C-alpha cells in the first residue's frame, strides 16, 4: 500500500483581532494510505475542521508540511492553490450552487473536458448516487439526503486524489444519517477513493473509517485502526471519549426499547 496523504508536524493558527497568533493545531502528524478512509474524531473546537481546511488549501500552516502523493502541497513558505490540488471536498452545508441544476452542479468541475466525456461522467455519477430522476432539479427542490448525494457526486466528478468530508452527516436526522454513512462508504469503496472525514460522532467514525485519529485541543492523541482505539487506547482521554460515546449510544438504544440499564 502506498501513502497518499502525509501530515508532518503540522501547526495551524488564527490571527486574532490585534494580530496575535491563536494556535489551533500543534505538531500534528499522520498518514493515510491510498484507498483508505481516515477520520478525525473529537469534540467541537478541537481543531479537526481546521486541519481539513488546511489540506484543502484554505489555511496556510505556520509550521510543518502537508504531502499529497509524494508532493508537498502546503508548508509555511509555500502553498499550492486549492484549484491545483486535485482535492475534493464535501462541505457541512453542502455549498451547492443555488443557480445551477443538479446536473450543472455535478458538471461544474468538468469544464475542461469535452462535451461528450463530460455528459458521460455526469451520467455515471448520477447513477452512482441514484439521482438520475433529479438531474434537472435545483438544489432547493431536493431533500437533505439528496442534496448531500449531489454534493458527493460533484466532489467526485473531477476524480480527485483525495476527498475531504466535513461533518458530512450532521445536518441529517439520525435514521438517514446511519443509512447515508453506509451509502457513502459503499460509494467510496466502489470507486476506490481515498477520503478524510471529520466528525464528533464516534459511531459515525467507527462505521465508516479505516483509520481514526482522536483529537483534543489541537493535538492528535492517537492515530490507528478502530480496533486499536477500542482495544489499546493510547491515553485516558481516548479511552474515555470512546467509552463514553459507546455508553451513550447503548443507553439511548436501551431507552428507546424501554429498558433502563
Amino acid at each position: 500500500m502506498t501513502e497518499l496523504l502525509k501530515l508532518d508536524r503540522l501547526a495551524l493558527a488564527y490571527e486574532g483581532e490585534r494580530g496575535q497568533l491563536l494556535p489551533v493545531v500543534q505538531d500534528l502528524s499522520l498518514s493515510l494510505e491510498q484507498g483508505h478512509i481516515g477520520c478525525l474524531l473529537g469534540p467541537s473546537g478541537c481543531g479537526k475542521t481546521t486541519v481539513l481546511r488546511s489540506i484543502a488549501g484554505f489555511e496556510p500552516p505556520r509550521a510543518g508540511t502537508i504531502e499529497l502523493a509524494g508532493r508537498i502541497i502546503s508548508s509555511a513558505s509555500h502553498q499550492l492553490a486549492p484549484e491545483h490540488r486535485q482535492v475534493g471536498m464535501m462541505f457541512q452545508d453542502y455549498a451547492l450552487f443555488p443557480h445551477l441544476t443538479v446536473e450543472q452542479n455535478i458538471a461544474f468541475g468538468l469544464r475542461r473536458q469535452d462535451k461528450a466525456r463530460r455528459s458521460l461522467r455526469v451520467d455515471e455519477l448520477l447513477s452512482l448516487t441514484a439521482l438520475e430522476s433529479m438531474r434537472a432539479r435545483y438544489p432547493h427542490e431536493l431533500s437533505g439526503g439528496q442534496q448531500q448525494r449531489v454534493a458527493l457526486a460533484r466532489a467526485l466528478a473531477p476524480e480527485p486524489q483525495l476527498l475531504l468530508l466535513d461533518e458530512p452527516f450532521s445536518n441529517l436526522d439520525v435514521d438517514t444519517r446511519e443509512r447515508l454513512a453506509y451509502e457513502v462508504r459503499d460509494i467510496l469503496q466502489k470507486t476506490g477513493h481515498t477520503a478524510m472525514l471529520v466528525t464528533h460522532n464516534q459511531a459515525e467514525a467507527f462505521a465508516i473509517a479505516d483509520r481514526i485519529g482522536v483529537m483534543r485541543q489541537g493535538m492528535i492523541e492517537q492515530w490507528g485502526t478502530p480496533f486499536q482505539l477500542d482495544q489499546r487506547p493510547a491515553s485516558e482521554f481516548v479511552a474515555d471519549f470512546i467509552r463514553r460515546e459507546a455508553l451513550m449510544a447503548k443507553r439511548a438504544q436501551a431507552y428507546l426499547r424501554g429498558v433502563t440499564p
Partner: protein
Amino acid sequence: MDHWAHLFSFVLPAALRNTVALLLGVGALVACLGVGAAWLVTAFDFPSRRIASWALLLPLAVPTYIVAFAYLDILHPIGPFQTVLRDILGYDSPRQFRLPDIRSLPGAIFLLGFVLYPYVYLSTRAMFATQAVSLLEAARVLGESGRSAFFRVALPLARPAIAIGVSLALLETLNDIGASEFLGIQTLTVSVYTTWITRSDLAGAAQIALAMLAIVVFLIMLERHGRRRQRYSNNGRGRTLRARKLTGSAAIIAIGLAWAPVVIGFVAPALYLLFETIRHFDQTGGVSDQLLRSAYNTVGVALAATALTIAAGVIVAWASRATRSARPGRLAMLCVRLGSMGYAIPGTILAIGLLTPFILVDKLMASTWMLLGNPDPGLLLMGSGVALVFAYAIRFLAISIGGVEAGLSRIPPSMEQAARLLGERPGGVLRRVHLPLLRPALVACALLVFVDAMKELPATLLLRPMNFETLATWLYAEASRGTYEEGAVAALAIVLAGLIPVVLLARTQSGSSYSHD
C-alpha cells in the same frame, strides 16, 4: 484667516445647528417609515399588500428638490390643499386659517423623510424576507408574541440593513441643495454653495466643506461600526415568512399605513406636476427641442456612469472579500472605505475637488496636442462630459460597493471554496458563481445608481460641459428664472424616467427564483 474668523462667527454655528437638526430629524423619520413599511408588508397580509409592497418604492423617483418644489405650491396658503381644507372647515380667507409654513425645519424634515425612506425600506425588507424567517419562527415557538418577536429578533437582525439604509438617506440629506434652498434652511451645503457662487469665495467654501466632511466621516464610521459585528450568511435553505392575514378594521388601518408614505412621497407631488404639465401644454402646445435634448443627455450620462460605477463596485468589493484572510487584504479594505467615501461627499464639494485636477489634465493634453502642430482642441475631459461621468461614479460608488458587499455576504464562503476545489481560479469563481448569484443585487444597484445619477443636481451644475443641459439643471435654471410651469415639465420628466427603474426593481425583487430561498 479673515475668512475663517468671519465664517466661524457668522455662518458656521447656525448652519451647523440646522444641519445637525435636519439630519437627526430625517434619520429618525426614515428609520420609522422604512422599517415600519417593510415589516408591514412582510409580516401582514392585507388587501393591496402586493401592490403596496412595490408602490412603497415610488418616492425613489422623486428627488428632494422636486418634492420641495412641488409642495411649496401644493401647501401654499392659497394653494390647492389649504384652499380645500378651508372650504371644508368653513373659512374663506387665509387670514382666518392657515397651516404652519412648510418653509421651516420641521417642514424640511417632513418632506425629505417622505422621499428618502425607500432606502431603508428596500434594504430592510430584503432582510426581513430572506434572513429572519426561521429565526422568527423559532422565536414564536419559544413563546414570543408577534410584537416582541419583531423587537427582539427581526429588528436586531435587520440592524445592518437599517444602518445602510439610514446612512444612505442621511448622506442624501447632507448632499441636498435644492430643497434646503427652496425651504429656506441655511444648511452647511447651502452655505458652501452661496459662499462659492454668490460671494466667489472658493477658499471660504472649502473651509465650510471641511466642517461638513467631519460630519460625513462621523456618519460613515457610525455605519461601519454598526455592521462590523454582523454576520448574515444565508445557507440557501430558508423559506419566506408566512404573513398574518388581517381583516376588518385592522386591514383598513394597515392599508392606510402602507399607502400614506406613497401618497405623500409620490402620488401628491406627481399629480401636481402632471396637472401643471397639462396646463402648460394647453397653453403652449408641446415640448421644446431643448427639453428633449436635455432628456437625451441625462439618460446618456447616467447610463455611462452606471456602467462604470457597477464595474468598479464589483471589482473593489470582490477584491476585498477575496483577500480578507490574506495579509494584503488590509489594502483592499482601505479601498472599500475610500471608495465608499465618495457617496458621502456632497456634490458641491466633490465638484470643488475635481475641478482643479481635471482642468490641469485638460490643459496638459491640449498643449501636448498643440505642440504636435494641431489646432487647440479645448477642454477634452470637461468638454466631453467625461468629468461628469467620473464625478457620478465617485459619488455613487458606495451604492454599488455596498450592494455588492451585502450580496456577497449572503453567499456563504463555502460556495467559493467549493468552486476553487473543483478547479476554478478566483476569476472564474467570480464569473461562474458570484456574478450569477449577485445578479439580483447588481440589478438593484444599477437601478439605484441610474436614478441617482439622473437626479444629481449640484455636481452636474458645476462640472457639465458648456451648453450641456440635463433635466435637473434645466429644471434648476427654469426655477431660478421663475418660470415654474416649464420647471414642472422637466420635473415630471425626471420623475417619469425615475419610475422605469423603480418598476423594474420591483419586478426583479419579486421575480427572481432563488433570492427568496
